[in-house]
């Protein structure tokens, strides 16, 4: 089963931040591949969602970029800033809390159904 883009959209920032926290620095293509590998292709991050999110994270000062020149192209490696590191912890615990709450709601619905 592949999860719908609506579900992924709300958690994309958290996924990217957590991956960067675990891997020090990553570039766009690497992030999409890593997510695919970790989730057995259940979550596929599209380029159309990833890059706008990375730009927003950069504008918020949560990530910085390091440039690597490969022939005629430039590869941008994304790294967490100190603010980004604390924000990652905050976002991950928020998501855990959310998942626990969802579990409660769904259990209740299952019982009443």
């Amino acid at each position, binding site marked *: 089963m592949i999860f719908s883009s609506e579900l992924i959209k709300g958690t994309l920032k958290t996924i990217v931040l957590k991956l960067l926290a675990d891997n020090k620095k990553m*570039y*766009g*293509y690497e992030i*999409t591949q890593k997510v695919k590998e970790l989730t057995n292709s259940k979550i596929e991050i*599209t*380029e*159309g*969602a990833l*890059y*706008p*999110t*990375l*730009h*927003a994270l950069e*504008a*918020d000062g949560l990530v910085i970029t390091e440039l690597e020149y*490969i*022939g*005629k*192209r*430039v*590869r*941008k490696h994304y790294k967490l800033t100190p603010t980004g590191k604390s924000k990652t912890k905050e976002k991950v615990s928020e998501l855990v809390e959310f998942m626990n709450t969802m579990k409660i709601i769904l259990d209740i619905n299952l019982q009443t159904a």
Partner: protein
Amino acid sequence: MYHLSNNQVDFILDDIKKRGIQIESLQQNLLDHVCCMLENEMKPDDDFEKIYSITIQKFYKNELYEIEQETNYLLTFKNFYFMKKVLILSGIAAATSFVLGSIFKIMHWPGSLALYMMAMSVSSFLFLPLLFLIKNKELKNLQEKLVLASGIIVGMLYCTAVVGRIVQLEFAKNGILWLIYIGFAFFVFVPLYFFTGIRKPEMKINTIVVTLLFIIFISSQFLMVNLQPLLGGLWHINK
């Protein structure tokens, strides 16, 4: 692993630019991403242009510049919640100033003019523009956006006309600004509002009632306009 030549990299970059990606940083991101995909997926005897056109289509639903639109959208509205808070606060400030100004006026206390001025200025230059930015984002339909835009213009014209009268601005003195506001509201905003709302079955009655209220309100405002200074010349000739 396939290795892309400099010409192929240039070709991809040109194509990304031609497809409407203007932010340089985003061009670099997409270029590297496409190159990585091609280098990992292409075989030496594959047709480069054919594989490229298949690969780039995976990046979007309709057009590639959707990615740039989404980026701009996220960058513009990263302060969305802050904007909403300012909207609410400015609305409260404008309403409070208006009510206080009215009380001051009834009691003949000094300062009612300043309070009216503040209410109208905050509404016109902070509350209404912010309301437009926030609501416009939520609306998908072009006609609804036009109704919103014309409504905001009516609101701004109304506030400016009131402020103009209070401080006796030259261009507002003879009532021309009032007439512009009333004319725009009556001939642009009301028809747009009516014909947009009437098409939706669930909004039909609501639209008719609100349109009638608008017409009554605008007509009563028109009755308050002293036409004599505007039609002075004509008046004189007729006499």
